[in-house]
């Protein structure tokens, strides 16, 4: 039996890897995705053009605009000449924020009165806008502090010291790469397994498999294991790229990582075969893949954190294998995650793997009859 399964696996791998185009299609896309995602997928905000309208002729207004110039966040500043320019500037997306300082600014401060500046933000880009507004507030806070110091007030003798564990400089790619190792090996595994049955069915070779001495269980294993193998290889390849290519620290245990990766790709192979056993054509299988993949990627906590979701939606994320692997991958890369927390995230994936493989087998056998 083992021999028969092995030869089926060998045949499947050959079918995938023999053709140069399909070899490229398995290796190249993840590499491109890793590169572009790592470089582009950042929620950092920098280099965003802003406008400043300074209608104040005094010293304080000038000093404040200089402070905007001095920060690394704002290196593209456009000076507006009048209030009427604000509308077109924002509407045509020449910039995301306009800081407006009115005529009274210096005079108010010099007369010992509080004053305000206006910040106009483009709501079409609410995330960027919020972060820019955060930068602006911290510039103003510093301005206030320095002003108080100049006026002879002693600075307060308490201070807040922020520190970031696991990623002290908050480098976004330290977050992206461990997440991508999991996400992209999921995609590679899905491409192989979802096609496994549907392709043979479309080409008509599935009937030949059925008349061979292989039992349904053997066929299922022979179809699932190549996906597992490719998922493991892809994972190892991306892991190596992350550690040596991008220099992301790997603090945890390699054995734990590969154990988790193995269970993860087994669960994904189960899902892939399940989709494949339901589809009659390759096209249906691919579209089925999308229907599984999109919610997985969007809800697993990679795009945006799970805790941002409404609480009624959060339980649905428990059936997404990627959710657990993201925690493990980031944890083992950056946090040296201990085995007990890793196992806490492994057992749900085991359940998912058992369930999907069993149902793939069920539907697959139903099609046989």
């Amino acid at each position, binding site marked *: 039996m083992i021999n028969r399964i092995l030869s089926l696996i060998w045949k499947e791998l050959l079918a995938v890897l023999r053709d140069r185009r399909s070899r490229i299609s398995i290796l190249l896309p993840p590499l491109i995705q890793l590169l572009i995602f790592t470089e582009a997928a950042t929620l950092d905000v920098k280099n965003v053009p802003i406008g400043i309208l300074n209608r104040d002729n005094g010293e304080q207004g000038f000093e404040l605009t200089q402070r905007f110039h001095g920060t690394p966040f704002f290196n593209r500043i456009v000076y507006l000449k009048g209030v009427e320019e604000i509308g077109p500037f924002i509407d045509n997306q020449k910039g995301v924020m306009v800081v407006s300082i009115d005529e009274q600014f210096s005079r108010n401060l010099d007369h010992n*009165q509080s004053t305000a500046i206006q910040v*106009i*933000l483009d*709501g079409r880009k609410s995330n960027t806008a919020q972060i820019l507004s955060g930068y602006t507030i911290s510039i103003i806070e510093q301005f206030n502090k320095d002003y108080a110091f100049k006026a002879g007030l002693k600075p*307060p003798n308490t201070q807040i010291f922020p*520190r*970031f564990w696991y990623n002290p400089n908050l*480098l976004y790619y330290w977050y992206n790469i461990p997440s991508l190792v999991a996400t992209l090996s999921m995609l590679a595994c899905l491409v192989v397994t979802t096609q496994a049955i549907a392709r043979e069915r479309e080409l008509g070779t599935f009937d030949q498999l059925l008349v061979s001495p292989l039992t349904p269980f053997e066929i299922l294993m022979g179809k699932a294991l190549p996906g597992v193998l490719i998922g493991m290889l892809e994972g190892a390849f991306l892991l190596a790229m992350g550690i040596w290519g991008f220099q992301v620290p790997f603090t945890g245990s390699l054995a734990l990582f590969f154990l988790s990766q193995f269970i993860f790709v087994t669960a994904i192979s189960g899902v892939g075969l399940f989709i494949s056993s339901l589809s009659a054509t390759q096209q249906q299988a691919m579209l*089925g893949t999308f229907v599984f993949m999109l919610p997985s990627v969007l809800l697993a906590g990679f795009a945006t954190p799970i805790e941002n979701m409404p609480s009624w939606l959060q339980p649905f994320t428990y059936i997404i294998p990627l959710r657990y692997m993201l925690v493990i991958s980031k944890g083992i890369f950056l946090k040296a995650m201990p085995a007990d927390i890793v196992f806490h995230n492994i057992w749900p994936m085991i359940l998912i793997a058992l369930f999907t493989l069993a149902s793939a087998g069920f539907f697959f056998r139903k099609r046989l009859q």
Partner: protein
Amino acid sequence: MTQKTRNDKPQWRRLRALIVKESLQIIRDPSTILISVVLPILLLFLYAYGVSLDLNHLRIGLVLEDTAPAARNLAESFTDSRYFDVKIARDRRELTHDITSGAIRGFVVIPSYFTEFLDRKETIAPIQVIGDGSEPNTANFVNNYAQGAFANWMQQEKVSKGLRELPRVDVEQRVWYNEQLESRYFLLSGALAIIMTLIGTLLTALVVSREWERGTMEALIATPVSIGEIVLGKVIPYFILGLISMALCVTLSVFVYGLPFRGSLGALGLVSTAFLFCALALGLMISTLSKSQILSYQIATVTGFLPAYILSGFLFEIYSMPYWIQILTYFIPARYFVQSLQTLFLVGDVWPLILRDIVPMLLIGLLFFWIAGHKTVKRLDG
């Protein structure tokens, strides 16, 4: 000779027959309905609820080593903050496990000597904020909100101690077009771009390469229909399918998810047509280049779907990307589509901006069409 001249001119009757055949194929295949109706509904739902950049409850810890009144006061400004769900501990070791497992996203430490240092004038009483750097965006929010809670406490202290008030500068913030700063308002435009890419590019690429793979394309070519008719016969039904799906999505966004629509339907139609033109042309180009379904799927994902997701600027700010990727985004139709959709939904018909978006889309579409046509003709000659 007469045969040849008949082939060169597109004939409406033959074209109509092809369109009917393709439309029947669309309607009969459940997977096309899946992608053009079910998937948009699912995606809009996911983007409306699942993807959100608006943090409502950050779970953090608070280590209260000092129990004097001043420290308790400070702790209260953290527990009272509407952004935080605070778990209080006496020892920081209790929280290390939680931050490793991801149960909390950071913690604040008020050290045992806090009040003592605060009362002495020459020392600085420190408060430590520790964020989980493995989630950089959330870590930033932890830090920002902690700074906010701390500033509140300082202000209260000043008032209670009757310290001299100095004039200060305040920031009056106004957000145009999206007063509540709802991330849903701009994320849904991105979802629309992704759905249109799936229908326009992925579906077309799959359908045309299936004809090549099964050899039915050669059969079609052998008939008197011209290559132009074949292409039009393929493209027109999917174009209509795309427009229907677009109408469905816009209706759902406005009436179910409460997005405002401040532009005009005419402008929306123009923008969608231009984008679908691009997406279909890309799909055709992919299928003529690859001719196999799996490969087409892979190429469509990398050149159509992923750029629409990452490089269109709806989630990740284009200005913050490295320069070479910024250049790349100019060739991504989704970038223009997302920008004009956001404007149409939230601002209105800003024609200079919309035209600036439509023209590049048309140019990119023409380029893809030209490549696709060029390749197909060559194949027929050879």
